């Protein structure tokens, strides 16, 4: 059979019966998938760039949004994301080491390096979940105007951000959360913010230290802070209290910002998560000796490619979402 297939084609690279690109079928298919997946992510990031250039003067500043580190209070821009980046690069390294050990057919080494890779991936996914939770919960709170713009608050003395709980008055009010158990079972109102619009407006009026910060970025790259007079005037435009973020509105600024955050980091996080699962499957296969019997560890190499790709995408997400 062999001879009938290869006859006359031995000197022809694309004649069949050999591997013109020097890579096996499985590896080529993995590369096919990665290239198409890269295009998907590029589509997301390019759409992000589109929306950002469209609202270039009012887009939120990432340093001011992602300032939290677990177990620490205070303002630490970037540190935690940088740590996450390092974790992912580190798990990429253990993955290459596993592939390298696979080439040398050292089963125990492959097992250990795969194990470390899985741990790194799990830490990353956990960190991302924490980051989402912090982002959704919010920090300072803000007001939304009739035109859907966000008004934040700063202290006139220090220039630092003020949370609405710092200055809001407590006014007696009859509004309570409408829950399913109190009315018709299929009706549920939106949950009330911690302070009503009125309480915040009164709080700003009585505390002369509170100034409004608008979305507009000035020439120095900072958000514009209004004067006291402008602040009191601007209060008339406010219609809603916004705390945290969801897909409709967020306290950080442009609505699209939160949407892209959820979509892009979510899609990437989903890739990391499935990467961890696939790594686990290959990990157990290595332990069971599947590849030992097969005589080569090419499966480890293939999941390795996927894992590095996830790392590669994160490098871009990190730049375009957090740095630029």
């Amino acid at each position, binding site marked *: 059979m062999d001879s009938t297939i290869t006859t006359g084609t031995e000197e022809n690279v694309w004649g069949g019966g050999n591997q013109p690109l020097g*890579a096996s079928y499985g590896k080529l298919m993995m590369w096919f998938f990665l290239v198409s997946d890269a295009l998907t992510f590029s589509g997301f990031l390019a759409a992000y760039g*589109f929306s950002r250039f469209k609202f270039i003067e009012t887009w939120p500043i990432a340093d001011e949004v992602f300032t939290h580190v677990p177990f620490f209070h205070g303002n630490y821009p970037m540190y935690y994301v940088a740590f996450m980046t390092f974790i992912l*690069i*580190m798990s990429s390294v253990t993955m290459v*080491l596993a592939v390298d050990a696979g080439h040398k057919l050292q089963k125990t080494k492959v097992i250990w390096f795969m194990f470390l890779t899985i741990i790194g991936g799990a830490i990353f996914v956990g960190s991302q979940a924490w980051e989402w939770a912090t982002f959704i919960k919010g920090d300072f709170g803000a007001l939304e*105007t009739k035109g859907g713009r966000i008004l934040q608050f700063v202290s006139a003395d220090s220039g630092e951000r003020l949370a609405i709980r710092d200055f809001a008055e407590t006014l007696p009010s009859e509004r309570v959360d409408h829950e399913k158990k109190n009315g018709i079972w299929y009706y549920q109102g939106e949950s009330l913010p911690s302070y009503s619009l009125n309480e915040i407006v009164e709080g700003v009026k009585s505390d002369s230290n509170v100034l409004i910060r608008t979305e507009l970025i000035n020439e120095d*790259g900072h958000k514009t802070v209004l004067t006291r007079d402008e602040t009191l005037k601007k209060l008339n435009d406010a219609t809603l209290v916004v705390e945290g973020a969801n897909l409709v509105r967020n306290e950080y600024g442009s609505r699209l910002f939160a949407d892209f955050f959820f979509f892009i980091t979510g899609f990437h996080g989903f890739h990391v998560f499935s990467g961890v699962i696939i790594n686990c499957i290959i990990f157990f296969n290595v332990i069971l000796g599947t590849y030992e019997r097969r005589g080569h560890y090419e499966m480890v190499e293939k999941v390795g490619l996927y894992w590095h*790709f996830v790392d590669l995408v994160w490098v871009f997400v990190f730049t375009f979402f957090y*740095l630029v």
Partner: protein
Amino acid sequence: MAHEHKLEIFRGLLKFKSNTQKIWGVLIFLTLVTVVEVGLGIAKPEALTHSYFLGMKVLNWIFIILTLVKAYYIAWDFMHLRDEKSSLRRAIVWTPIFLVAYLIFILLFEADYIYHVYTDGFVKWNF
């Protein structure tokens, strides 16, 4: 499966004795680049945030270039494209680069146009 590894990086400036050593070398390099990026991101030197090149801050250009450098070493050494046949490498690398460059060009120009429609038009958006 490419069993023989090319052990030089930086166009032969740095040679490693084994593949494992090369991996650690690349890790150190990538970590350094990330530290520089984060350092610049926190410090935001005024010389870089107030100068522009092609309508974008110089600092942002630096971030993007450093990102591409990192992407290169991840793809070349971690995904061992360096050891693959050049035909495979080119097929993988140039296809997305061409498509993505085209996409970015079109989307960003369009976005800039819409920005001007918003700011120069007679409709008020911020109220």
